C-alpha cells in the first residue's frame, strides 16, 4: 500500500530525421512543449529512422513528433513506423509529422498510422491541444 500520488507527465520525442539541417522549428516546438508541461526529449539533427525508433522505445514516449523539411517523408516515416511495430511500441505512441507535406502525401501518411500532420503556420496551441486530447491512455 502506498499513498504516493502518481506523477505522470506527457513524454514527447521531437525527432529530426534525414538530411535536412533546419531545426529551428524543432527547437521552437520543443520549448513550447516544455512550457506546456511536457517532458521533451530532443533527438538532435540528422537521425536515421532506426535511431528514432531506438530513442522512442527506450524513452518510452507517448508522443513522437517527426520534423521533416527535406521532402523525404514518404521513405522515412514508413521506416519509423515499421520499427515501432517491430518493438511493439506503435499502438501506444501518438505519431505526428511536422513540416512541409503535400496534401496528397498527408492522406498516405495518415493511412500508415500518422495521427496528424501539422504544416507551417500551425498555431502552437493547436498542436498542444491535439496532443492533450489524443495522448494514448497507458495501462
Amino acid at each position, binding site marked *: 500500500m*502506498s499513498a504516493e500520488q502518481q506523477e505522470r*507527465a506527457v513524454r514527447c520525442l521531437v525527432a529530426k530525421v534525414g538530411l535536412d539541417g533546419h531545426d529551428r522549428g524543432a527547437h521552437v516546438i520543443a520549448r513550447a512543449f*516544455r512550457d506546456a508541461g511536457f*517532458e521533451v526529449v530532443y533527438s538532435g539533427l540528422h537521425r*536515421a529512422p532506426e*535511431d528514432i525508433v531506438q530513442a522512442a*522505445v527506450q524513452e518510452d514516449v507517448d508522443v513522437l513528433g517527426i520534423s521533416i523539411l527535406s521532402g523525404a517523408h514518404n521513405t522515412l516515416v514508413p521506416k519509423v513506423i515499421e520499427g515501432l511495430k517491430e518493438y*511493439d511500441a506503435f499502438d501506444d505512441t501518438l505519431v505526428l509529422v511536422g513540416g512541409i507535406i503535400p496534401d496528397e502525401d498527408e492522406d498516405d501518411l495518415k493511412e500508415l498510422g500518422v495521427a496528424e500532420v501539422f504544416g507551417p503556420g500551425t498555431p502552437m496551441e493547436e498542436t498542444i491541444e491535439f496532443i492533450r486530447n489524443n495522448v494514448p491512455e497507458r495501462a
Partner: protein
Amino acid sequence: MAGPDAPAFADAPSLSDADAALVEDLLSGSHRALARVITKIESRTPGYRAIVSALHEHTGGADVIGVTGSPGAGKSTLVDKLAAAYRERGDTVGVIAVDPSSPYTGGAVLGDRIRMGSNVGDMDVFFRSMSARGQLGGLSTATADAVKALDAFGKDVVVLETVGAGQNEVDVVRTADTVAVLVQPGSGDDVQTLKAGILEIGDVFVVNKADMDGAQRTVAELEEMVHRREGGTTGRGAGHHGAASMASTEGGGSAGSHHDAGHSADSESGESDARDADADDSWTPEVLETVANTGEGVEGLIETFDAHAAYLRESGEIETTERRRYAEEIRTLVRADVGALATAEIERRGGIDRLAERVRDRETDPYAVAEAIVGPIADCVEEAADGDRDD
C-alpha cells in the same frame, strides 16, 4: 541484520498479472518492457513497488558508475564515449541521464540524447532520460530503482549521469559504486565551488577538455585538494566539514561519507591495484585528464573505474557501501510512507491550513497538533508490535 529473531518479511507488495508479465518480459530481454518499467518507476504508477520488489533478487550484477559535474563540463559527451568504449570490449551498457525540469510547469527538455552520437542504433546501449521533477520519494529513489531495472535486465555497466548542482543530485550519484566528478579547466574558482559537497563524493576526478588552456593548473589544484583530503588517516574526517555534514543531512547521522566509511572497512587488500600504495589501503581518488570530443583518455578512465571496482571488492568495502546504500533506501521509503500516512491524517482533520489557523488563533499549538496526528499512528504501531510478540 538478520538474526534468529528477525521477523520474516512476508509482506512484499503483490504483483498484478499484467505487471508480472512485464517483469517476465524484462528479464527475458524485452527493451519495450524495460522502458515501460522505468516509466512506471518514474511516474510512481500504482504497482511499481511490487515490480521493483520482484526485480531486486535479479540485481547486483552491474557495475554502477555515477558521473557528475557542472553544466557544460562535458558529461554527456564523455558518457557517450564511455558507452562506446564499454561496447567495444563487449559489455552492455545502460545510461540514466537526469536533467533539471522547470519548477513552474514541470516541463523539461531532456537534451542529453543529442550527444549520444557514438551509440545511435545500438540497442545494447539503453539510454534513458529522466527529469528531476518533484519526486515524492526523492529523485534518488527513482533513479536507484531505474538502475535496478537496468541491472536486472542484465546490463554489465550502468552509468548514472547528473548535473552536480545540489543535494538532490549528490544523493543520486551517491547511489553509484564509483563516482566520477567532471571538472572544466580554466578557473580555480571552479575547483573552489566543488568544495561545497561534491569533492567528498568523488572516487575519480576528471579534468575534461584537457586540451584547453589552464587544464594543467586545474589538474594540479585537484591533486593538491585530493591529497590534502588524504593528509593522514585521522585528520581527514576532521578537516572536512563537508563530509560530515553531508552524511548527516539525510542519513540520520549514522552513515559516514563515502570515504569515512572506507576507513572502518580497511582490510587485508594490500595488492589491490595499480595505485601508489602509499599509506593505508583506502582508495586515493585519482585525477585524470580526458578530451571527450576526441575520446582521448577514455580508455584510462575505464581502467580506473575497473581498478576502483576491484578495490571495492577486494577490500570488502563494497559490502559496507551496499549496506549503507540499502539502509538509506529503507530509511527514505519508510520516511516517505510514514509521511504520507501523516499527510492523509492532516487532510482528515480539515487540512493543514485549518490547523495552522487554529494555532494562529491560540486555540492549540503545533506540538499538540503533531501529537494528535501522530499519536494514533504510534498506537497502531505499538499494538501491532505487541501482537507480533504474542505470536
